[in-house]
């Protein structure tokens, strides 16, 4: 009996902690966003983050997309060949890539790369008093450190996802044409026929939201880290885990909103 009560009490505490945390994160994000419209603006930091997220993530995102597109083509072929449904493969690839694989895989890759780096950088600034030093030098640390990164994440992820969409389709195309001996022109025609502007657009909207969530997690956990190098390490892990879970949760919610009618 006592064991059950303890378990329920523990569960209740965990839920309360999560709600409290969600509130803190939401407030943090809201404060950071409120600085978007209030000068001064830190264009140099914004540009640096854009390059860091949008440009330096290109190789990982490109490789992931290329192989995932190829895998989808291969799996669909082995799964559906018996039904003589080869013509459907191009359609399956573009649907999977634009709707889900592009945004989710690019998002997860960026969460690992950028979310971790961001929380480590800001976390180090926190534990070495650099964030406090900003305040004493007439600089609002939210405005200087957090806002440009959130904006950069929100802008850079759609771009990465667009690249992932194109390379995912290219991956499927390569497998089908080189390995399975499909006709290249027929594949391209089938791809164009199945391409839906709505799918791509929703994928890019998802990407923007993912980009915001990833950078929000990186900044939030870094900003609130404490306890030296160990604390920064913990913050980095927390940022990546939280970003990945949030990303998949929001992916489901957004899919429900956009595609379930």
């Amino acid at each position: 009996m006592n064991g059950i009560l303890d378990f329920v009490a523990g569960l209740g505490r965990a839920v309360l902690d999560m709600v409290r945390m969600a509130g803190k994160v939401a407030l943090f994000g809201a404060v950071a966003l409120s600085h978007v419209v209030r000068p001064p603006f830190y264009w140099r930091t914004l540009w640096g983050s854009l390059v860091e997220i949008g440009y330096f993530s290109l190789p990982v995102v490109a490789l992931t997309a290329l192989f995932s597109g190829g895998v989808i083509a291969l799996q669909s072929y082995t799964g559906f060949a018996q039904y003589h449904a080869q013509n459907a493969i191009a359609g399956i690839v573009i649907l999977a890539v634009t709707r889900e694989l592009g945004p989710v895989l690019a998002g997860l890759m960026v969460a690992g790369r950028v979310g971790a780096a961001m929380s480590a950088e800001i976390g180090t600034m926190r534990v070495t008093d650099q964030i406090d030093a900003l305040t004493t030098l007439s600089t609002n640390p939210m405005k200087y450190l957090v806002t440009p990164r959130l904006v950069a994440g929100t802008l850079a992820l759609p771009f990465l996802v667009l690249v992932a969409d194109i390379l995912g389709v290219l991956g499927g195309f390569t497998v089908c044409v080189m390995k399975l001996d499909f006709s290249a022109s027929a594949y391209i025609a089938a791809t164009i026929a199945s391409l839906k502007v709505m799918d791509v657009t929703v994928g890019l909207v998802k990407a923007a939201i993912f980009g915001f969530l990833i950078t929000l997690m990186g900044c939030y956990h870094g900003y609130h880290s404490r306890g030296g190098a160990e604390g920064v390490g913990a913050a980095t892990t927390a940022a990546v885990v939280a970003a990945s879970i949030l990303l998949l949760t929001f992916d489901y919610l957004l899919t429900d909103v956009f595609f379930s009618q």
Partner: protein
Amino acid sequence: MTEPTPKIRIRGLKKAFGPKVVLDGVDLDVMGGTSFVVIGGSGTGKSVLLRCILGLITPDAGSIEIDGVDVTTLTPRQREPYMARIGMLFQNGALFDSLSVWENVTFGLTAAARMGHGPRLTRAQSRARAGELLEQVGMDPAVGALSPSELSGGMQKRVGLARAIAARPEILFFDEPTTGLDPIMGAVIDGLIADCVRKLGSTAIAITHDMASAQRIGDRVGMLYEGRLIWQGAPDTLFDSGNPVVDQFTHGRREGPIKVDVRT
């Protein structure tokens, strides 16, 4: 004739973190143009005291007056002009490691210009200004091109000092400026601090647990113990203060009223 208003006046300042009481009613007056040194053991709340004055930590109770205005009652925006008058040298320098040394030194000037206070300098002008400031703290202006991680601890402290004095603040805080330095470098930094404070005519609060340092920098010394300033006096009375707690601390005795819990 009335007493002149102290530059900084603190009354009944309290701060606890959870159950842990750190500051328990600190009273402190620092007159304009003088230097006050706070001594005290590790973890007694010396840094917390400075952070409260800077507005980095919100105290639980008490008042902090700067030029007679209680800044704890102000909104963050109203508080900004008061904070802009304070320069701070952090315990470990806290230099921005993503920026070069000269960008660190002029960071506050650039920030102030961005907010519309003070002139907007071109990059070349900023850089020249950084060179002058580095020379003031006894460094070669060429160091400005380096990254903070390329500097030794003593050099980082000097760059931190140059950054703190760049905006010619009326008030300067130094958090353990000589901790971690060899005695000679410590004396050099103390000399620079005393020099800068005198040249700017600033009011200063310095934290240290180095008695030699306290005597070199301070016009007055106070000891923080169990959340209060339990003793204040002239620096030359440090070693015969007549207060058993201060005596034990300044002479570094193991036996005495201060119970050192070696397990924490």
